[in-house]
């Protein structure tokens, strides 16, 4: 009896899914999507307004395979494994530098791009730190790394990384689950550069992270936003745009860049050597620079935009929000990540593993 009923059940389930299959494929069949081939885009988690993808597909007739990653290191691994031919990768400054140093990027031909002039000069300047000719990377968004805290759970002023080691907040501290980001806090507390390759400095930083381990609620990246909104934790390391979204969701939250300094970063769109549809990739990057795309993205994820065309149309209030647009003074102590070479990379990875298994 039991077996029979399970069989009948499975039969029903297969029918339901069969119907769903028909419905699903019927829905995506219409329109002119895909007539100009397809591109595969690799981006951070929740780092684009999803509607833009279907807009692009409809406008350009190119199908987009959209895939997300958590940390730049994950992206690098997936990319180098060669199992998937990515056409556009959106990633951070130091990772762009790393890919460039390995000849993994194709130059981007910006001459034919319609919207490329929307990107402000100061951001091209920013990128010249790692892309001297501005030939490989097109700025996408920029921001900082700082501390988000819940004012209903944290009474004191938050202005130092040291609060992430405060035992009063045991089990209420969220750390970045991305190796370079996680090391910002201890390195800046020690007064060291976030680009140090000095083993003694790094080991000292690692010891601090190990010491912090028992206090940590979780190591996470994209989830931090929701954890903070729902009040799961009191403090967390976070990216500025996620912080803005979180603050919008929960007015008790606040963001600060600690006085010891932090990381200011810029994420860029690049075309990797694996690209099979370079033309489509260029069109996608151009599309991202358009006024509409930049505006939609800004309203969705609230990161600093290099797109100066939309700045004029933003509210005074938004422009004055130092979480999104930090003042020069706030950025004074902030450094840009540099690629440190494969030896230092390996050391970082080893130390990070020590931290994560220090229970």
């Amino acid at each position, binding site marked *: *009896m*039991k077996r029979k*009923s*399970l069989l009948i*059940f499975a039969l029903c389930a297969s029918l339901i899914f069969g119907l769903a299959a028909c419905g699903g494929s019927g829905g995506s069949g219409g329109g002119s999507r895909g007539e100009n081939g397809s591109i595969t885009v690799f981006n951070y988690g929740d780092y684009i307004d999803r509607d833009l993808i279907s807009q692009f597909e409809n406008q350009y007739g190119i199908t987009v395979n959209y895939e997300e990653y958590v*940390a730049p*290191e*994950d992206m*690098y*691994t*997936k990319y*180098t*494994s060669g199992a998937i031919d990515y056409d556009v990768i959106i990633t951070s400054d130091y990772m762009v530098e790393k890919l460039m140093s390995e000849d993994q990027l194709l130059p981007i031909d910006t001459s034919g791009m319609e919207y490329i002039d929307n990107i402000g000069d100061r951001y091209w300047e920013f990128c010249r730190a790692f892309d001297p000719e501005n030939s490989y990377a097109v700025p996408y968004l920029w921001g900082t790394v700082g501390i988000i805290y819940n004012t209903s759970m944290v009474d004191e002023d938050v202005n130092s990384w040291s609060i992430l080691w405060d035992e009063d907040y045991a*089990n*209420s501290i969220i750390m970045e*689950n991305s190796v370079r980001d996680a090391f910002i806090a201890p390195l800046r507390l020690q007064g060291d550069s976030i680009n140090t390759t000095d083993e003694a400095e790094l080991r000292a930083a690692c010891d601090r992270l190990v010491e912090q*381990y028992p206090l*940590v*609620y*979780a*190591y*996470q990246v994209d989830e931090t936003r929701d954890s903070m909104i*729902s*009040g*799961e*934790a009191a403090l967390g390391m976070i990216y500025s745009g996620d912080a803005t979204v979180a603050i919008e969701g929960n007015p008790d939250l606040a963001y600060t860049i600690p006085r010891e300094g932090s990381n200011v970063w810029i994420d860029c769109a690049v075309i990797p050597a694996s690209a099979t549809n370079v033309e489509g990739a260029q069109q996608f990057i151009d599309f991202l620079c358009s006024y509409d795309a930049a505006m939609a993205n800004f309203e969705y994820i609230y990161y600093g935009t290099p797109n100066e065309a939309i700045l004029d149309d933003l509210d005074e209030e938004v422009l004055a929000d130092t979480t999104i647009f930090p003042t020069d003074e706030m950025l004074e102590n902030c450094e840009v990540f540099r690629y440190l070479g494969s030896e230092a990379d390996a050391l970082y*990875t080893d130390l990070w*593993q*020590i931290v*994560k*298994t220090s*229970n």
Partner: protein
Amino acid sequence: MSNLFARREQSRSVERHNSPRHPWLAGPYIFWAAGFIVLPLVLVFYYGLSGPDGTFTLANLAAIAQPIFRNALGQSLLISFGTTAICLVLAYPLAYILSKNRSRSGAFIIILIVLPMWINFLLRILAVQMLIANNGIINMILGHLGLAQMRLINTRAAIFLGTAYDYFPFMVLPIYNAMCKIDHDIIEAAHDLGANALTTFRRIIVPLSLPGVISGIIMVFIPSISEFAIADILGGSRILLFGNVIEQEFNMSNDWHTGSGLSLILMVFIIISMIVMHRVDKDGEGQIIW
């Protein structure tokens, strides 16, 4: 006796034709099995036993001695043994109670117990997460009662809870099936011969349900020792299990060699448990669950 034996031998040697005699029909599957079962495993062995330069080495297996991997393996063993024990302790009495009552309602209750299994396991984990989060339901209730909050999420206890919750049905079903197979006459005979309930349970029910117990143990133990998704979600990346470090070797460190070496070590544990299962469970109770 010898006659009987001879007849059995004879019947075995008779050519049985109950379908077309075309061995080549298995051809497509032989290719499939060679290409997608054997070859991938050969690759795991190849990478696991070679260094980046392609020469033979045992270094990838020896990597297990590194504190990170040793620690993760220890965590995994702890979690999988613990989970198996929790499930067994809870499932055995349940299966016994339900099997005594072999009515429609008993069968229906079993279906209800297996029912959560039909829901995607990640959604079940989500349900657990919801209960044990810092501001989850349990802490909310504790708060209302004026009791101290409990730290559950992102601890080892959370992973225990999640795996046990997920795999519990895998333990109940084989034990229940084994118990249902026990002939009532045997139990009655035991009663008639003067055995009390406890003796009957100890001398008849326990030994006869053992194959089911072993299947249940294997079916909980193997998935929980190689688990990584539950630890990811309920462990907040604070606790790395063996499955997590293997996954990271492939997806983060991009080290196929060490990752394959660790996979080989995981397979050793699985093979050991298979041998144990094969010794005890010849009826294949474990095949009942799918």
